[in-house]
């Protein structure tokens, strides 16, 4: 049965350590809600599991059953059954959504899917996600609204059928109807045995998909694990109780805005007169 084991994981980005020894196990039939204040490493954990090259694992292990995830390339991790629905899915100009999806489906199969089979799969998934079928012929995520991008992430999940799906703020940018559509799709996959690791700041999504387990990440470590009641507590009282009850000082998110300048590009030339 699929289980993801994360042990003593340390990750840095731009020479700053973000994850400082994460220990977490996600097992069969689980939906784990990962909570924590902004800037404490939740998205970094998901990105590191998927192998985002911006993040460097300096210590620790990640195993999917007996497979060493850290020894795999990004594409191998995907084909091994890991999937990350990204918070900000990339817009890739010129790469047609349908071509990309077909290629992604085919890398998992010995015999390539026929065009008819593929369009049937895509049509079914598009209807389920309420995405107009024509969007399959547009450039990947280019010009998609925030909600369309998120629904397209779940459409990909449905087509690729991973073992463990990681959802990074899948509910941001979704209106009430779209949230319902996305959560229905997640529930369907939960029933079929897909394991979920879900980041969200809002209890609304969790109410719809009913996580089985909860973990709270503070200062780059998992400091609390338990059942769904933790979600309600955090939703009503925030994270202060962790400080008072566990004596953990919550570091402030010190995101510094980068200095930017707007340059002048146009040149004005004084034409010589007569």
């Amino acid at each position, binding site marked *: 049965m699929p289980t993801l084991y994360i042990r003593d994981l340390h990750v840095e980005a731009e020479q700053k350590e973000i994850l400082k020894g994460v220990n977490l196990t996600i097992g069969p039939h689980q939906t784990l809600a990962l909570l924590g204040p902004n800037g404490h490493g939740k998205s970094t954990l998901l990105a590191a599991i*998927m*192998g*985002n*090259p*911006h993040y460097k694992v300096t210590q620790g292990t990640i195993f999917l059953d007996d497979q060493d995830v850290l020894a795999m*390339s*990004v*594409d191998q*991790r*995907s*084909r091994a059954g890991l*999937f*990350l629905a*990204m918070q900000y*899915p*990339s817009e*890739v*100009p*010129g*790469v*047609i959504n349908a*071509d*990309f999806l077909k*290629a*992604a489906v085919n*890398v*998992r199969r010995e015999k390539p899917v026929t065009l008819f089979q593929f369009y049937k799969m895509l049509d079914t998934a598009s209807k389920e996600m309420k995405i107009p079928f024509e969007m399959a012929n547009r*450039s990947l995520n280019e010009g998609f609204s925030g909600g369309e991008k998120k629904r397209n992430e779940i459409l*990909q999940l449905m087509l*690729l059928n991973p073992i463990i799906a990681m959802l990074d703020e899948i509910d941001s940018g979704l209106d009430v109807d779209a949230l319902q559509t996305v959560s229905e799709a997640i529930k369907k996959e939960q029933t079929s045995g897909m394991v979920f690791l879900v980041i969200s700041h809002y209890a609304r999504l969790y109410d719809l998909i009913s996580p089985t387990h909860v973990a709270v990440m503070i200062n780059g470590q998992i400091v609390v694990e338990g059942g769904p009641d933790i979600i309600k507590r955090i939703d009503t009282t925030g994270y202060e109780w962790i400080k008072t009850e566990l004596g953990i000082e919550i570091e402030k998110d010190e995101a510094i805005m980068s200095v930017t300048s707007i340059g002048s*590009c*146009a*040149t*004005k*030339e004084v*034409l010589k007169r007569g």
Partner: protein
Amino acid sequence: MDRIALLSQHKALKISKNEGSLKVIIGKSESPLFILLDWSQISSTHLDIEITSCQDVDILEIADARDTELTLHVKDGATLNWSTVAFVQGKKTKIHGVLENNASVNVAFADFSLGNEILDALYILKGDHACIDWHLASLAARTDQKNIQVSFDHVGLDTYAMMNNYGVTEDSGSLIFAGTSHIFKGSHHSRTHQNAKIMVFDPQCTAKANPVLKIDENDIEASHAAAVGKVNDDHLFYLCSRGLRHDEAKRLITLGYLNPIMNYFHDEDIKARIATEIEKRV
């Protein structure tokens, strides 16, 4: 669609010779005109083409290995859809176009030629409301040296120019996109936009994108964007995170750079040939 050769005997075509160059006046036709300009079928290397007022013409140009010079005169209200494919050895091409009142020109240039290529194009939007939409895709590989210069002079009122140059350079290839969009004094309400992007594959490549704006009027709209760089890491990660191998992801992204030029070609045989050429070379 059936095309007629540019120098064929057709009632809408008036051909004359003038000091070594050929002049073709494309006149009135009851049905839309689809014309083939295959340089390998023409002895002269200088062509002067005039599209008469209010005529709609579609010209497909197949480049050959000679240096060529082309003068275009698009009269009032005429529409010219011009598409060029270059597959053979590179060369030097000079284009000088003049657009009169309400003239409209759409250009698609698919450059997959081998070797060196110099393209020097200047379109003068002389008449009021003249507009041009320019799309180019170019690949410089091996030791190809390609210098693409596309310029627009906005002279008339409310003129519009859009330039999209996309390129890929690999091996020791060199690709330079340059050109100036100049809005002259008195060209009120004109709009000009430049977009030049080059994807660089190998450390030995040379790539430069230098679109320049010159603005001499106030109530105008102008923008330019230039980007030169390797394949975007975030794009690669996104595609690989769906299981695509690194090389396949890179190939899809590159095709995404070059393939859109096919949207501007309507001849199925030519589209298939461009697709084959891109697949072969990427």
